[in-house]
């Protein structure tokens, strides 16, 4: 059995469905992200694991024991909140020692442990400071240290980086991942930021409207989205609407696109075909005959993003987005006539 297991969890708030029939197994030491737009139920699920909400139906097992009816202060679960939730009346060391004090640990052990977690987050010199004297990033690290100090069985993080600046966010997510890996602590991470979820997780759980849309590794989620919601919520995608014309082709308006991902969809089914910008190849000459899915177009917009340049290509009225990397030698110019192709393997097809 998995270390943390949620079975058939449902939760309504005054007749509004927050979470519906949620099933998930989390292995020991994994970092699992709940990813979705606000209101998708990810935070409610996390709060049920923490014990702040009671599921209407279903059971939560931790290490083989049903914890559904254990109050939050007996669950041995560490939690990090978006708003830091440091105790303003205590200094950093007192904040970190709070959980240990509740467990009535011996004084010297508390002090040693506080020093350990402070060095883990590299903030040894802040022990005597008060929360209001720290930056947002520092506060969130202290909150992490405080949660880790009690050596919880599971660490829960509820949008821990949302209140921080972009730069701090990137640095801190790297640190969270490093510490989590080093300690091997089972972690559930809630976020609405797909980049964050992809870069930090072992497993991503994409949620929408209280339901799980897909569970998988970041690579699976990104490369093989099961649903249109997953495909468009994560990353960017060109969308083509049409219908299945045979077991490996989709007819979209005038054009017929070859895809190896039609799967078991029946001929005639209305579908949407998705191609990510980085899977659109650009040529300044017509490509060879063995290249599939070749279309002509004219460069409409050029946006420089550093390592990549994003092109908007007008192909018979439809704007197709393509990303070209800095190493592609051919310079592009506005209104340039170009050819583009989609690799059939990267043309995701899903029923509308």
């Amino acid at each position: 059995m998995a270390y943390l297991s949620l079975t058939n969890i449902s939760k309504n708030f005054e007749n509004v469905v927050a979470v519906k029939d949620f099933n998930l197994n989390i292995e020991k030491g994994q970092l699992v992200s709940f990813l979705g737009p606000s209101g998708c139920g990810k935070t409610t699920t996390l709060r049920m694991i923490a014990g702040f909400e009671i599921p209407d139906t279903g059971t939560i097992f931790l290490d083989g024991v049903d914890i559904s009816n254990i109050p939050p202060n007996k669950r041995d679960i560490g939690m990090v909140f978006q708003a830091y939730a440091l105790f303003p009346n205590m200094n950093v060391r007192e904040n970190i020692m709070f959980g240990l004090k509740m467990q009535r640990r011996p004084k010297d052990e508390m002090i040693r442990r506080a020093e350990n977690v402070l060095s883990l987050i590299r903030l040894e010199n802040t022990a005597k400071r008060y929360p209001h004297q720290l930056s947002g990033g520092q506060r969130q690290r202290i909150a992490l240290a405080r949660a880790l100090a009690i050596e919880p069985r599971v660490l829960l993080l509820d949008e821990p980086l949302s209140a921080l600046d972009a730069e701090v966010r990137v640095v801190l997510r790297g640190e969270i991942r490093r510490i989590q890996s080093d300690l091997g602590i089972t972690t559930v991470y809630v976020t609405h930021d797909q980049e964050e979820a992809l870069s930090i997780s072992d497993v991503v759980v994409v949620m929408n409207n209280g339901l799980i849309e897909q569970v998988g590794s970041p690579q699976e989620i990104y490369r093989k989205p099961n649903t249109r919601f997953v495909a468009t919520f994560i990353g960017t995608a060109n969308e083509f609407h049409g219908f299945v014309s045979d077991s490996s082709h989709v007819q979209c308006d005038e054009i017929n696109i070859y895809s190896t991902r039609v799967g078991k969809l029946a001929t005639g089914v209305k579908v949407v075909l998705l191609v990510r910008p980085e899977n659109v190849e650009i040529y300044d000459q017509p490509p060879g005959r063995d290249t599939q899915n070749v279309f002509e177009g004219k460069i409409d917009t050029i946006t420089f993003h550093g390592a990549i340049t994003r092109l908007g290509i007008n192909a018979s009225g439809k704007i197709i987005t393509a990303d070209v990397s800095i190493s592609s030698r051919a310079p592009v110019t506005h209104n340039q006539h170009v050819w583009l192709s989609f690799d059939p393997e990267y043309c995701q097809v899903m029923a509308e």
Partner: protein
Amino acid sequence: MDISRKSKPTASQIIFITLFLLYMIIPIIATYVFSIATRWDRSILPEGYTLQGYRDAMKNPYFLITLKNSLVLSFGSVLVSLLLIVPTVYWVHLKVRLAKPLLDILMILPFGIPGVVLALALVQVYNFAPLNRSPVLLTSAMVVFTMPFMYRSVSNNLEAIDIPTLTEAAQSLGANTIDILVKVIIPNILPGILSGSLLVFATVFAEFTLARLIVGAGFKTFPMLLVEYTRKDGTIAAGLSVISFTIAWIVSLLILWVGGKGMKTSQDVIKAH
């Protein structure tokens, strides 16, 4: 025509502000001076200084009685106010957020109740023993009268601290309800509790109308003694004023100090939003 942020204040504005400050402060200073002046009606500065006024004031047997009465009344009102307001506000903040606008409205009402009307109403309604014209009735009136101060202080402090999240954070760290209240909630709303208490204390201590109309001579308060002396001896009255004002001043400074501390610790949570 420039109203940019950096321009210097003009001379007229400086004069304006200065006059304004003088207008507020002169009478207070004058009272201090008057309380130790021997005679001050024939010249700009007093002719001499003496502490006789204070000695005379303290000789009056009522001095200690009224001081004690006023202190009892003030502390009593603070206590009742705390017991009534703090649990209510905490409960509303934590559990029935929807009731908060209603409470906000209710709590501005005492500003709209003239002291005179309130006193009259209480005397008329509670005119049976043991309430009638009793210090208990006066305390109730004082509590109602000063309720907005206590409510605002505690409520603003609770507003600034994210109580539900702090409660959850403490729970996740293994704290039970008593630990949470004693170690997390109360220390963090202490500035609001203290500043509310001090405001109530200062107001009740200085209140004259309610005391005079509700209990009258039966329970003489310090301001009543003061008013009595204004008819008898200006210097003694000034001395009593100084004492009263000094108490109020100390309380005010405490309010500011406590308020400042509250601000600082609340910043943490405020900045997080």
